Each structure stands twice: as structure tokens, then as C-alpha cells.
């Protein structure tokens, strides 16, 4: 019996969820669960950004805008008191996807540097809307008054264990969906566009439509990351939509690797653990982060997971070379 890939990924995700769900039973240290939620929020943000950067070849510097849009729209919907958490969650995804599609329709017409600039411009537009529309967003004070978390289906998100399990569950569903997207014909077409846009166009691919679709999906997943963060901090703040948020996403991809699917997630874990540790021991977070990035850029020359995966692949290849003896004597191999 052949099991389709989606089912296989879903089973793996379920097993991972079982492992993650065991953590609160092993330890009563809530901070580990908090770290898990942070990893879900930032990891999903980085993975979604990599759908653009690593898979489609679009360096977006405006991705934080959608993260903030997710956090704010979810927070605002919940503050009305008219929606349950699943309803607000679904509406937010629809809203952020629509917003991303609108932005994408303008941005994808431009190439490379100009694309990056215009995404940054949109992000700054969102940021300034957040700051100036004080009556709705709370301006630079952020969305005040907390986010109500009514119980649904027996899940109480005020309880840190429930919040952790909720975030882990949704996160794993998103990861499976993102992986399925990258492994689908759609994902391969995105890679073709990344590698040679002109060739893809000659082959009849509607390049801009694919880019819009990729941008919309990435924006929607970033919005889910924003919702996790809004639930975690029980608020939404303008810094979620500042350009440095997008910069952090790029750092995560650089640290973890953009060629391996889970690379950005590894980058998010590195950045979060690094931030946790440096905050405990020193105030010089920027200095430590700069040094780590230097090591990665100058030493590994790629992200950590890319380095490991490619290293293993190279070792396997060299072992295969040793096992399969060439039939032609070495000196006779034409050069």
C-alpha cells in the first residue's frame, strides 16, 4: 500500500506533537513552554518568509507588516467580544491573506532590489498607520487592555499549558502545509522561477501569478505567527510591524539555512536561545549576535542546518565514491 506524502508528513507531525505534548508532563517549568511558544511564533514567521526568500527568490523586507497585521487584527477582533478564538483566528487569516494579496499585486511587478524596497515601503506604511491610527491601534502604546481569551472546546488559553499545546498544534499543521506546498508542483514551479525567471516565462508559467500566490501564502502564515505572539504577550505592539522584525526574519534564515526546509526554524531557535542566554548574562546582545553572524558567514558560509545536511550529503557521496571503484584506472580518467 502506498501512503501519500501528505499523510506521511501528517503522521510525523502527530508524533512530534506527542513528544512536545509530553514536555509539560515532564517538567513544571513554565518558562520552557513560553520558549516553545516564542519558537512557534518566530519559527512560523521565518519559515513563511523563506517561502519567498529561499523558494521563490523574492527578498521581502516587509514581511513583519503581515506578522503585525495578524497580531493586531486578531487582538482587535477579540477585544470586540463578539468572536470566539477559532472564529477570530479564521477571520484574521482571511484578512491577512487578502492584505498580502493586495500588496503582492503591486510588488511582484518589480524585480530584485526594487521589489525589496517596495516591500519595505509597504511595511513602513503599515507601521505608520499603526502609529497614527491611535483610536484603533493605541498608537505607540500598543493595543491596550489585554486580549480576552474565552474558553472554547475546553481549551483555556489563559492556562500556559493549553496555550503551549494550542500553539504547537497549529504550528505543526502550518509546517506540514508549508512543506506540502514546497514539495508540490506549485513549489517546484516557484523554485524554477527563483532559478531562472525568464526560462519559466518561456515555458508558459504565469510568473507574476505564482509570485502573488507565494506572497499571499507567506503573508497568511506570517499572520498566524503574529497571532501566536499576540496571544503570548496578550497585546499587539508597533514593534511587531517595524522593519527590524523583517530583519530578524532574514537573520533567522541566515542562521538556520535557506536551502533546507527546516533551516529557518533552526535559525529561529538559535536566535531565541541566544537572546535568552545573552539577556541573562550581558546587556551586549547586539555584540554577541554580530559575532555569531560573523562566525556563520565567515566560518560556515551558510546556515547551520544547510551546513549539517550538506556535510552529511557530501560524506555520503564521498563514501559512495570509495565504494564504487572506477573501472578506468585513475590516471586514465580524462580531465
Amino acid at each position, binding site marked *: 500500500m502506498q501512503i501519500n506524502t501528505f499523510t506521511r508528513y501528517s503522521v510525523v507531525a502527530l508524533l512530534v506533537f506527542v513528544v512536545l505534548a509530553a514536555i509539560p508532563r515532564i*517538567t*513544571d*517549568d*513554565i*518558562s*520552557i513552554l*513560553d*520558549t516553545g511558544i*516564542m519558537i512557534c511564533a518566530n519559527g512560523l514567521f521565518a519559515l513563511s518568509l523563506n517561502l519567498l526568500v529561499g523558494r521563490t527568490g523574492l527578498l521581502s523586507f516587509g514581511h513583519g507588516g503581515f506578522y503585525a497585521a495578524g497580531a493586531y487584527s486578531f487582538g482587535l477582533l477579540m477585544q470586540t467580544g463578539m468572536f470566539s478564538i477559532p472564529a477570530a483566528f479564521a477571520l484574521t487569516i482571511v484578512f491577512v491573506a487578502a492584505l498580502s494579496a493586495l500588496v503582492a499585486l503591486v510588488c511582484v511587478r518589480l524585480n530584485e532590489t526594487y521589489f525589496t524596497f517596495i516591500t519595505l515601503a509597504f511595511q513602513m506604511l503599515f507601521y505608520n498607520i499603526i*502609529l497614527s491610527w*491611535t483610536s484603533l491601534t493605541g*498608537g*505607540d*502604546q*500598543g493595543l*491596550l*487592555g*489585554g486580549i480576552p481569551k474565552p474558553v472554547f472546546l475546553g481549551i483555556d488559553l*489563559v492556562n*500556559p499549558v493549553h496555550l503551549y499545546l494550542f500553539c504547537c498544534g497549529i504550528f505543526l499543521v502550518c509546517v506540514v502545509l508549508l512543506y506540502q506546498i514546497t514539495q508540490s508542483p506549485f513549489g517546484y514551479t516557484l523554485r524554477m522561477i527563483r532559478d531562472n525567471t525568464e526560462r519559466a516565462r518561456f515555458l508558459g508559467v504565469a510568473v507574476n501569478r505564482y509570485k502573488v500566490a507565494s506572497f499571499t501564502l507567506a503573508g497568511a502564515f506570517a499572520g498566524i505567527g503574529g497571532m501566536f*505572539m499576540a496571544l*503570548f*504577550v*496578550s*497585546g499587539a*505592539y*508597533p*514593534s*511587531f510591524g517595524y522593519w527590524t522584525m523583517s530583519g530578524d526574519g532574514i537573520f533567522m534564515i541566515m542562521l538556520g539555512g535557506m536551502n533546507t526546509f527546516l533551516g529557518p526554524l533552526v535559525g529561529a531557535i538559535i536566535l531565541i*536561545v541566544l*537572546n*535568552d*542566554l545573552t*539577556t*541573562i548574562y550581558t*546587556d*551586549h*546582545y*547586539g555584540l554577541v549576535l554580530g559575532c555569531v553572524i560573523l562566525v556563520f558567514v565567515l566560518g560556515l558560509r551558510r546556515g547551520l542546518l544547510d551546513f549539517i545536511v550538506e556535510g552529511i550529503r557530501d560524506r555520503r557521496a564521498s563514501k559512495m565514491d570509495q565504494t564504487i571503484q572506477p573501472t578506468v584506472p585513475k590516471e586514465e580518467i580524462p580531465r
Partner: protein
Amino acid sequence: MGKTGKRSIHRRAFVKGIGGVAMVAAVAGFPAIVRARNTGPIRIGVSAIMSGRVAQMGSSSTNGAIMRVDAFNTSGGLNGRMIELIIRDSKGRPDEAARINRDFINRDDCDMILSLEASTGAFAVQEVVRELGTLCMHCLSETSSLTADPKLRTPNAFRSGRQGAHDAISAGSYAASIAKEKSLKKWMTVGPNYAYGHDTTEQFLNYLNHFSPDIELGSQLWPKIFQPDYTDVINKILQEKPDAVFTCLWGGDLSSFIEQGNLYGLFDQAQYFCIALADYTTMAAVKHLPSGIHSGNRYVSTFPGSAPNAAWEAEYVRQFNSRPTNWSWEAALGMQFLIEGIRKTGSSDGNEIAGVLPGMIVNSPFGVDGTITMRAEDQTIVEYGTGWGVTQSTEPFMPNVTPTDWKLIYELEAAWKKEQGYI
């Protein structure tokens, strides 16, 4: 190491290495220390902005808190239990402030929180402590709604800092009295272009109009926060020739504006009202501080002009080799309230301490009559020294401060709260 001497890492060694690193990270990153609540040190988590453009906010406020803690520990603590401050940098990011404070409570087992965050971070901390129920003292946020708005208030969070609403009443009443005395009709305002700047300016104008309804308002200028060049602002003021200018620029922005204005003789041509000039670090940063600028007191050792205040400043300078700021006294006072609560209850239990803080009166060098009250109704301080004075170019920079009458503040604050729907 391979037999040939060529460097290579065996898979098992690699896995062991990764495992070792993971163990170190786990031990260093997630130190879950389980202790009984009434033994061992009393742990207080302090989140502050210790890096970036406003790092001085974090350093000078933590100094104020450290002074109080050192005095408590030197006197024997609580039956031998010392206070241990765990200070961490929130980098001025509210999400980071929320994470750090959750860690203080969930990981570091802190008994209470001393929040040395600016307003945005303070609101993030407020949501954390509302959810987790830990006692929190906000020291630096001046946004009135934090404690004035019953929807935002929570029984376990208090404020030991000055309030925007109090300052606005103080500024409005003082400026109106000078306006009447010197016939200042035409006014301009200069405020940093973010919520604090807009809110403070609006509130000031509201009270200026209340006390002196016949003023005329000219241009309102909004330079960006951390703007390096104020030429456009200065030119506009020179062009409009107002009788008086109100500004709520602060810190480095204010000293840059004054330095650059000095080049044009700006401060000889009108009366200037700077709400945040009278802080030593700002006044000392200006090379030639003009005489005759009106300013609200942030921190000056001449106001309240008491021996304990002068002694507190001298002790601060001795310990840290720098002058205290407004943030220093606010943090010192916040720590003092927590310590008084610990002493009064004989416990480090946040709930018990939160029960005795409302209405508590402490002796303080920063109180207008030597005491400061934690007002029970909105869990914020009152009767602290607030007033306005005029600068001089040499030490002590602001020798005389006219205190604002707290009766007036109470009266107008109540009206403002009613207007906002808070009461």
C-alpha cells in the same frame, strides 16, 4: 582524528558534541530552581532599557533601586533574607519586556517585579502581571491611563512614578500665571512626533486654556524623535515670532534643540517652557544652558529643598559617580514601597504586600512635605514634589522651584477622569 592525521569528526563524536552543547544550553538556559517562598533570598525581577539610545533610562533607574536594596540588605534584610535584584535588558521592545517578565516569574521564581520600562513596555508588563497575578511596581511610565483607567488597572500593579496628567496641570497653571504676568499671548508648541509628544502637548494646551483662555495658538511643530537637526523648527519659530513656546522634547533631543537654538539666539526672543529640562543629565549636556528657561522639575536636588534630598543626591553621586535623574528617584521610591511592604507584612508574598500598599505613606526626600502616599483608589503615588522654576546657566541650574498645589491637581485630575469616563 583519522589514522592519516587528517582532521575529521566521527559521527559519534559529533553527536556527543551536539549533546554536550545541548546539555550546557539546557542547564544555562532553563535553570528551574525550585525554592520555598519564605526561605532564601527575596528575588525581584527588574526589566529595564539597558541598551540603545535611551540606555541612560535603564542605568540611572537601576542605580536608584540598587541604592535602596543595598541599604535594606546592609541593615540585615528580612530576618536575614536579602533582596536579590535580577536585572535584564528589554531593549525597549514590549514583546521582549513581556517575555523577560514571564521568565522572571516562571523561571527565576521572582517574588515581585520592579518594572523600569518606558510606557509601551510598561503596558506589556501590565498584561503579564495581570495574567500571572504577580506583584508589580511600575516606576517610569508617566502615561496616566496605566493606573487611571479602571479597564487597564489591576489590583497587583502599582505606580511609583509621576503622571502625565499631574504634570500637565502643573505646567498649565504655572505657564498661565507667567502668561498673565508677562502678557504672553501668542504661543507655539514643539513636541516629538509620537504619542507622548502629542498627548502631553494637548493636555498642556488644555490646562493653559483653562487658566488663561485668551491665548492665541500659532504653529504646532512635530520634529521626529531622535532628530539630529532642528534648523527647520528654529527657522519657523524665528519667522513666527511667538511670545512663548512650549516644548515637551526630552533628553538628547532637548539638549540638541537648545544647543542649536543658542546659535540663533532663540532663547532671548521668547519665553520657553520646557517640561523636561530640569534633569541634571540634560542640563549638564547643554554646553551653554540659557538662563531664564522655564522648566518642570524632573530631578533637582534643590526641590524639595530639604536636607534628606540633598543627602540622597550626594550619596547617589558617591556610589555611582554620576548625577541622578528623574528616573532614579522614581525607581528608588518604587523599591522603597516594596521594601516597606516586605517589612510591614514580614513576608515576600506578593499578595500580602499588595494588600498593604494601597494608602501606604512613606517618608521620602522626594515628597513635597517629606512623605509620599500610594493613593488607594488608583494605586499611584501622590504628594510627590512637582513644580516649575527658571534655569540659570551655572550650578545648581534651577535654584528655585515653585511647587504646584496638590489641591489644584486633585480637583482638575478628578474633572479629567470624569471627562475620560474613568470615574
